[in-house]
């Protein structure tokens, strides 16, 4: 294996660690509780025997505190993370997660606050929600905000249900029953059609043009049948291109009696520069865990606020947080609301972090972050253009898509390039998305990376392009420097093992 070009990483020992269940030793404990300080009565007097658990929770691991510490510390070292370097996953906006925001979320007066505390007793918490709503309204240009959705997909569902509720109210039961089509571009994220489906819509797919934009003609065609409830559009779209005809697009949809939903996953290209509300968008979700820097946490939690026009506001989930004079309160009295989409008020801890992000950046800082994010993507676009196929000519916004077209001639595919990037010390980009681009590699550097590391990334990618020519096997078998190699995912799915079982049980099964 040639590694002369690899300057970003060096192999080093990393600790092995079994499953915690394999570490368990009867009798070990890691907890310390105070002694019971009330008179104890026989448990059977409290809970009849037949309702009591009798398996002693067997199988659960018995370990000491230091076992737990070592277990998680060790396995943590097997992860790549933003704090280790560039994490250029397109569509995911892997930006720096400020420690200050983490600290804010842990302030006792928030962390220990019960969601059912009375309004008077939670004024600070409600004010945070209100402030964040206000800021997001300003940023999106859409005044109706609900912070209840827990993630992007959840926000989509909420937004689409709002569209449905609005149309049902506008058109009346009979007429609205005919408007059950949701238009979605073929480049859209999978959550879009899934969310539309959950709201009872039939999905029709709009083609993209060869330039990477929504096909206006196809859109018009699809809008001609009177069945369109709306359009779900990502902007910049998932190819990283700003839909420059957005006003026309919303015009067509509105004219056809539909509403425009914008998937706001790519707002990191727009904050402080342009506002969906000014583009004819009726409702949008944001991903606070992307644009507003709340940590991805290895897969969540997120927060997917839904922002809409005044017209749609009555349909937002309950409760709403409103201001009454100097006080904040929960408003449950919203007869047109689509209902509640989550217990309590959403992922509150993420709201704290996002507000902290907005306040520390300030309005200028928010725009500067957007500029840096776009500039970095542009820099990568230019740096890789000579070696990789760039399927679209339009200047990319915050992310750029390339393909494996040239490399695949040598039998080196996107997956191989991604895996080889690991050897070079980078987390791979998003691959095979969007689906419409064969062998897509979607690269989003975000603003949280300096020139030096961008250059390293470009150099690594160019080096891989050379390897694909000179030593395709090397790339096809990558990664070579990780604890484990490529795992057999097909076999795993064929006979899924989804949990640990004790040896006896496992062999008996």
């Amino acid at each position: 294996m040639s590694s002369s070009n690899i300057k970003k990483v060096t192999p080093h020992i990393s600790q092995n660690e079994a499953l915690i269940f394999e570490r368990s030793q009867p009798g070990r404990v890691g907890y310390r509780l105070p002694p019971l300080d009330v008179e104890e009565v026989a448990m059977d007097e409290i809970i009849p025997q037949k309702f009591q658990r009798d398996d002693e929770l067997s199988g659960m691991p018995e370990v000491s505190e230091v076992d737990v510490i070592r277990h998680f510390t060790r396995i943590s070292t097997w992860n790549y993370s933003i704090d280790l370097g560039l994490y250029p996953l397109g569509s995911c906006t892997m930006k720096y997660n400020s420690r200050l925001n983490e600290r804010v979320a842990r302030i006792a007066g928030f962390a220990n606050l019960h969601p059912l505390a009375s309004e008077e007793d939670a004024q600070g918490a409600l004010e945070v929600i209100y402030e964040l709503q206000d800021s997001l309204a300003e940023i999106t240009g859409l005044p109706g905000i609900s912070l209840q959705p827990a993630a992007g997909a959840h926000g989509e569902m909420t937004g689409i249900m709002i569209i449905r509720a609005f149309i049902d109210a506008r058109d009346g039961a009979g007429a609205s029953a005919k408007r059950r089509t949701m238009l979605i571009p073929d480049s859209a994220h999978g959550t879009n059609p899934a969310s539309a489906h959950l709201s009872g819509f039939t999905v029709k797919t709009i083609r993209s043009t060869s330039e990477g934009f929504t096909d206006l003609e196809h859109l018009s065609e699809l809008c001609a049948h009177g069945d369109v409830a709306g359009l779900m559009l990502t902007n910049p779209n998932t190819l990283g291109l700003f839909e420059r005809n957005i006003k026309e697009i919303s015009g067509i949809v509105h004219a056809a009696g539909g509403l425009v939903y914008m998937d706001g996953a790519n707002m990191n290209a727009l904050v402080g520069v342009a506002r969906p509300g000014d583009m004819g968008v009726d409702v949008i979700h944001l991903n606070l865990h992307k644009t507003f820097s709340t940590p991805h946490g290895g897969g969540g939690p997120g927060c997917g606020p839904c922002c809409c026009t005044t017209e749609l506001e009555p349909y937002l989930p309950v409760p709403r947080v409103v201001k009454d004079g100097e006080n904040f309160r929960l408003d449950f009295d919203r007869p047109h609301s689509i209902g509640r989409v989550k217990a309590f008020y959403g992922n509150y801890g993420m709201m704290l972090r996002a507000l902290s992000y907005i306040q520390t950046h300030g309005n200028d800082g928010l725009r500067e972050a957007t500029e840096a994010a776009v500039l970095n993507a542009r820099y990568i676009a230019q740096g890789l253009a000579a070696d990789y196929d760039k399927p679209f000519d339009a200047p990319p916004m915050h992310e750029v898509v390339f393909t494996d077209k040239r490399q695949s001639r040598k039998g080196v595919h996107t997956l191989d390039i991604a895996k080889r990037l690991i050897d070079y010390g980078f987390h791979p980009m998003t691959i095979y998305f969007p689906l419409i681009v064969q062998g897509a590699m979607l690269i989003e550097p975000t603003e949280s990376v300096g020139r030096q590391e961008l250059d390293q990334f470009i150099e690594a990618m160019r080096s891989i392009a050379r390897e694909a020519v000179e030593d395709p096997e090397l790339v096809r078998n990558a990664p070579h420097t990780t604890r484990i190699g490529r795992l057999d995912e097909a076999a795993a799915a064929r006979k899924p093992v989804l949990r640990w079982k004790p040896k006896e049980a496992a062999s008996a099964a």
Partner: protein
Amino acid sequence: MLGQVGLGSAEELFDSIPADLRLREPLKTSAAISELELLAGFENLAAKNGAARRASFLGAGAYSHYIPTIVDHLISRSEFFTAYTPYQPEISQGTLQAIFEFQTLVCQITGMEVANASMYDGSTALAEAVLMAERVTRRSKVIASSAVHPEYMEVVRTYVQHAGIELVQIDSDSSSGQTVADSLAQLDNETAALVVQSPNFFGCVEDLRALADKAHAAGALLIVAVTEAMSLGLLRSPGSTGADIVVAEGQSFGVPLSFGGPYVGLFATREKYARQIPGRLVGEAFDKEGRRGYVLTLATREQHIRREKATSNICTNEGLIALAATVYLETMGPRGIQEAARQCAQKAAYAARRIREIEGFSLPFTSPVFNEFVVRAPVDAKELLSRLAESKNITGGLALSRYFPERANEFLVCVTEVNSRREIDSLVEGLASVSSEMIQNHNGT
């Protein structure tokens, strides 16, 4: 760098956005502030949350339990919290192995066979369970006990409103507080699932075995929701009493109250339904050299592959909170969970004994409870609790009128291992004195 990419100014970066769509002025959000100012500002807001500083007996879906210090330390390792969904297993084994352990722990504690990598919370997990029951049974009627958490039912209603599912709510027994099998007349062979919560919203432990038998007899699934997951340390697991899908709010397992979120939804079911599960699943896999690892698996259920035909639209879930629950459960271990559960039950029983003795107070429901119970006061509960907070600095519980206007004098008290005997005694004394004051005032006028 601008020059490098052939641009003269930052504004040119946005040339592809039509000029009339570009903001001409800065956003009207506030100007940047420093760390010092920011922290002072948030501390100031936090100080306005009086309830966060008080002895509290609030439960009803969110619980105060002791959180070992190591939980936050471990989930704060940036290798965990600044990583994405583990799509690249070679450099994500930390997250993947943790999720595999989480799935296992959820199975163990619920008594089920497979569990997913988490849902948004207990309420959305319940909604997804109802949708899954419909997929599995291809039936469209769902019967739910009215003793399921009202907010959970609201969420279910929102989720199923466009799914062609008929949602029928049946009352729980007014004396025992339980959902009784006799009342299930509507459970028929059109029914996809019976949905109950145990302990239910009123704290009463349901007879799951009886309910499961009834449901199964009609070919329906039993969906059990658990809002107080700590109860599983003491109560027979839903899995061992015949549940087909178990969902739970995992907040009790090491997650701060945080005004309602982020929490974590647990979702477990039978192995035979594995391919109908919503959300992510992690499975064991091997590399060419036979080294064991873990990968996201059965992805064909999911939206990024299946799009509108996916088992759910969920993508981002509650990864880090699931990790917190994993750390918590492994730290506590079986003995710790049992001990915490025992203390909850004993302390709640003690509180119930003492409250029952207060003049004019009673406990309307007769069935066994874990750590929550309904109290009937001789006065308006909301006012009673608000006066108690004001004069005794205790949050005494949740006035049921928030959800059930007709239960104006009732409130739900939750006691956990963090409530000391002294706090309980103060609660009892406070309830006695404040209520008698209220009665006197009332009699006086």
